[in-house]
C-alpha cells in the first residue's frame, strides 16, 4: 500500500511539474490579457500579444512556455499523519529526475563550488523544500519553478527603521528600476517586509504564491500593494524594457514583525511566466489539483 502511494506520488509530481511549466494559472493569464487590452504603446502591445500567443501554443503543444524551467522550489504542507512524511524529500528528488527526462525540463542545478551541472535538477538542497507540518493525514504540494533571469534581479535591502514605510516604498521602486528589462517584464513583485534578512526574502518569495486577483487581507497592506503597482508602472520600463504602460502585473506584499533596530525589505522579481501549481494528495493516493481546473490523468507525458 505504501509502496503504491510512493509511485502514485512520484507520478503525480512529474505530471504536476509538466502542468506548471506548460500552463499558467488563470489569474496570471487574466492579468496579461487585461494589460494587453489597456496598453497604449504599440511595441508593448505587440510584445504582450506574442506572450499570449506563446502561452496558448505552450498549453496546446505541451512544450514548456519558457526554456528556462527554473529552479524547483516546493512548498509542502503536510499532515503529521501522512504515511510517507519521512519519504517526501526522496520522492520530490525522484520526481525531479524523472521530470527532467519526461517533461522535459532543462537541467538547472549547478554545483556553485565546482561549476558542474548535475544534469537532473537535483543536488545539495535541490529541489529546495519549504516545510510546514500540521495536523491531518494528507499533503498539499505547491511547485514554484523560479526562472533564473528574474531571480537575478531580486534584492534584499536592509534600511534604517527611521525611514519607515516611505523608505520601504523607495526600496521597492529603486529595485524595480534597477532591474529594468532584465527580469522579462511585465513582472510580478513579491515584497517581504520585516522579520530578519532571511525571513524577508522567504516572505517575498512566498508572496508570489498568492493569486494576482487577491489583495492582502489587511486594508493597509492591500493599499500599499495598489500604490506600489501604480508607481512601478509609471516608471515606463514596459514589456521587455522597451517602454510602455505595463512594467508590473501585480505587487504582493507579505510582512512579519521586525526587530526595533532593523527594517529588512526583500524585493523578489518574477517574470511574466509566473508558473505555479498545487496538488493535494490524500493518504489513500487520491490526487486533486487546487491551482488549475484539470485532472491528473489529462496531463500527458
Amino acid at each position, binding site marked *: 500500500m505504501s509502496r503504491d502511494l510512493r509511485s502514485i506520488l512520484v507520478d503525480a509530481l512529474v505530471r504536476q511539474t509538466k502542468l506548471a511549466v506548460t500552463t499558467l494559472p488563470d489569474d496570471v493569464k487574466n492579468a496579461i490579457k487585461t494589460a494587453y487590452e489597456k496598453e497604449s504603446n504599440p511595441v508593448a502591445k505587440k510584445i504582450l500579444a506574442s*506572450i499570449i500567443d506563446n502561452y496558448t501554443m505552450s498549453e496546446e503543444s505541451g512544450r514548456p512556455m519558457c526554456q528556462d524551467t527554473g529552479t524547483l522550489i516546493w512548498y509542502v504542507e503536510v499532515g503529521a499523519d501522512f504515511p510517507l512524511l519521512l519519504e517526501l524529500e526522496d520522492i520530490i528528488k525522484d520526481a525531479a529526475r524523472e521530470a527532467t527526462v519526461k517533461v522535459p525540463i532543462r537541467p538547472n542545478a549547478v554545483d556553485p563550488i565546482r561549476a558542474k551541472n548535475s544534469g537532473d535538477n537535483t543536488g545539495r538542497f535541490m529541489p529546495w523544500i519549504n516545510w510546514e507540518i500540521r495536523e491531518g493525514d494528507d499533503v498539499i504540494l505547491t511547485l514554484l519553478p523560479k526562472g533564473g533571469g528574474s531571480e537575478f534581479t531580486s534584492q534584499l535591502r536592509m534600511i534604517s527603521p527611521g525611514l519607515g514605510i516611505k523608505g520601504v516604498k523607495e526600496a521597492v521602486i529603486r529595485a524595480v528600476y534597477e532591474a529594468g528589462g532584465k527580469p522579462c517584464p511585465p513582472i510580478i513583485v513579491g515584497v517581504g517586509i520585516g522579520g530578519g534578512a532571511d525571513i524577508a526574502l522567504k516572505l517575498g518569495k512566498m508572496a508570489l504564491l498568492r493569486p494576482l486577483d487577491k489583495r492582502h487581507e489587511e486594508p493597509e497592506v492591500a493599499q500599499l500593494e495598489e500604490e506600489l503597482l501604480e508607481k512601478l508602472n509609471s516608471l515606463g520600463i514596459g514589456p521587455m524594457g522597451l517602454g510602455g504602460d505595463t512594467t508590473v502585473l501585480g505587487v504582493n506584499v507579505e510582512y512579519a514583525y521586525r526587530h526595533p533596530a532593523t527594517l529588512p525589505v526583500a524585493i523578489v522579481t518574477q517574470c511574466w511566466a509566473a508558473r505555479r501549481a498545487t496538488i493535494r494528495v490524500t493518504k489513500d493516493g487520491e490526487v486533486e489539483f487546487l491551482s488549475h481546473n484539470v485532472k491528473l490523468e489529462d496531463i500527458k507525458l
Partner: protein
Amino acid sequence: MAEYHLKTPIPEEEIRKLRVGDILFVSGRVITARDEAHQRAVEYHEEGKKLPVEFEGNILYHCGPIVKKVDGEWIFISAGPTTSTRMEYIEPTFIKYFRPRVIVGKGGLKEGTLEALGKYGAVYAIFPGGLGAKAALAVKKVVGVEWIDLGTPEALWILEVENFGPLIVTMDTHGESIHRDIEEEAKTRLDDILKKL
C-alpha cells in the same frame, strides 16, 4: 514601426534600411551561441582556425534551448532568448570577425556593440523573453549541431526557421538604441516618483 519578412542570407543594404521599432520575421538560417560558444569562436579566429559554421548574412541567436533526441534526430522543445548583456564584452569582436546580420536576444547590448553594428552593418533585435514554445515551433529543421561538448545549452545549433518572430529591432546601424533611451527616460521618471513619495 514597419514590418519586414526577411530571408537569409540578408544583404548588408537591407539591414541598413532598418530602424529601431521595426518588426522582423525571418526565414532561413539561425545559429545559436551563448557565452562559451562566443568565447571559443573568437579564440578559433585568433588562432587562425576555421569555424564549423558560417555566420555571415545569417542570424546569431542568444539562446540555450531545451532539446530532445528522438529516433536519432534532434528536436527543439523550447527555445526562447537568453540575456544578451552577458555577451557585451565579446560581441563587438564577434561581429567584426563573423559578420552576422541580425543578432537576436533579450535585454539589449551596450555602446560597444552599437558601434560595431553601425560599422559592420548588423542590427540587434529582441525576441520577447520567455517565448520558448513559439520560438521552438518556428524551427522547421535542426540542420546540425557543433561544439556539443560545451553542453546542449551552450552548443552551436544550426537551424532552419520559418517566420521566426516577432523580432523587434532595438539597436540599428544608425546609432539608435531603444534600450539606452528607455533607461534614460526611466531614470527621469524614477527621480520624479521618489520626489513625490
